[in-house]
């Protein structure tokens, strides 16, 4: 028995002519916060729908807690707390009805915890879901995703379009979940700042393919942002392997590179350029360098 909570191997998914997922493999180990990042339409939601068993793997395999989520939806879904951007709660229900209704599905439902969350989130039990503000609706969704202490908390763009205070609640929920021994969080987001705060492992998806997947620490350690000052003004920067993107003008050019700074340092020497600044880029900068730029501008291999 492996310790992985989610195990996806070689999954490809097409919608008509569009390839939404292209031979995607990833493993989410137990007890980590796993961040899934990618531009809109990169395939994050499609991937999450496979984990939930809402889509059947056309090729490859999906296992969650060692089970096939399509063949055994009860065994899988009873252990997942799920919140999506769409957050399609039944609008006609009152908050207390929503809580009672959801509770019926989960033997492990914790009434005390549910009530604690309801109070923390200041959710009026008599309010109709459809009359809640967007933020309160997200909190209601969060409550029913958390109150049975799921083994896996699965959040699909949970913070999208929400104010900072609700986003703070969502981050706190992620942190509390992981702080409880052995539980796991898989969340997708394009708020890289939040991912950088809470993720242990980051997977970047670009056009259905995994562009980068590694522990956040390793990603941060392998990427560097270097500013070079050339002796003379240059119309464009030199081509150096490992440099993902250049930015600058004239004599000063800044590169984001992968695999450490060594190759660029060597190249700088050769070009008679001085390295005037070196730092670790933010996840946001790494993401933009990795997937935000047309492939033609990247000096590969």
């Amino acid at each position, binding site marked *: 028995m492996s310790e992985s909570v989610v195990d996806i191997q070689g999954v490809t998914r097409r919608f008509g002519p569009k390839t939404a997922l292209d031979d995607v493999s990833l493993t989410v180990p137990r007890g980590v916060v796993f961040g899934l990042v990618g531009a809109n339409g990169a395939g994050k939601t499609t991937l999450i729908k496979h984990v939930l068993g809402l889509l059947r793997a056309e090729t490859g395999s999906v296992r969650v807690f060692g089970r096939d989520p399509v063949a055994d939806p009860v065994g899988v879904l009873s252990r997942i707390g799920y919140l999506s951007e769409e957050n399609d709660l039944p609008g006609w229900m009152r908050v207390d009805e929503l809580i009672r209704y959801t509770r019926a599905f989960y033997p492990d439902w914790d009434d005390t915890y549910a009530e604690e969350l309801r109070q923390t989130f200041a959710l009026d039990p008599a309010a109709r879901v459809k009359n809640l503000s967007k933020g309160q609706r997200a909190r209601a969704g969060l409550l029913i995703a958390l109150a049975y202490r799921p083994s896996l908390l699965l959040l699909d763009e949970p913070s999208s379009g929400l104010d900072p205070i609700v986003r703070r609640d969502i981050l706190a929920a992620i942190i509390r979940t992981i702080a409880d021994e052995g539980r796991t969080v898989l969340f997708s987001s394009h708020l890289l*700042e939040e991912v950088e705060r809470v993720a242990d492992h980051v997977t970047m998806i670009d056009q259905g393919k995994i562009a980068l997947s590694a522990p956040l620490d390793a990603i941060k350690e392998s990427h560097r942002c270097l500013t070079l000052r050339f002796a003379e003004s240059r119309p464009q920067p030199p081509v150096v392997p490992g440099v993902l993107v250049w930015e600058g003008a004239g004599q000063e050019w800044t590169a984001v590179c992968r695999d450490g700074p060594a190759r660029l340092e060597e190249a700088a020497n050769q070009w008679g350029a001085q390295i005037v600044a070196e730092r670790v*880029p933010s996840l946001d900068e790494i993401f933009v360098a990795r997937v935000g730029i047309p492939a033609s501008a990247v000096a590969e291999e």
Partner: protein
Amino acid sequence: MQIHITTSDGVPPYLQIVNQVKYLVASGRLAAGEELPPIRVLALRLRVNPNTVARAYRELETAGVVEKRSTTGTYVSYAGSPLARREKLRIVIERIDALLAEARQLGFDAHEIHDLVRQRDAAMKPPESEK
């Protein structure tokens, strides 16, 4: 304990915690024997992964800045002086470098700055300091 985490400058969050705790200890805002918040509490307050706080505490422990006491918690260590000294030095050197860089820009040399520092130091001494 006031710590601020930013993700805009690329410094890993655990290192920001390490640096800021060192700074707080060196500047006396965290006293020897003072207890640091539990990992989970600080993680929630800073909105970072608990593993990040755990890693920061481990590094601080290795560096001798804090010590774990059996099961109770993490405390600022009493024996942290050599590092605190080094850390204090680092803080001052940073300021001096910034001063020198600006002074050079404005056309002062190190000798003039040296004299000015003495002058200012004399001027700063409160007149009723003969205690």
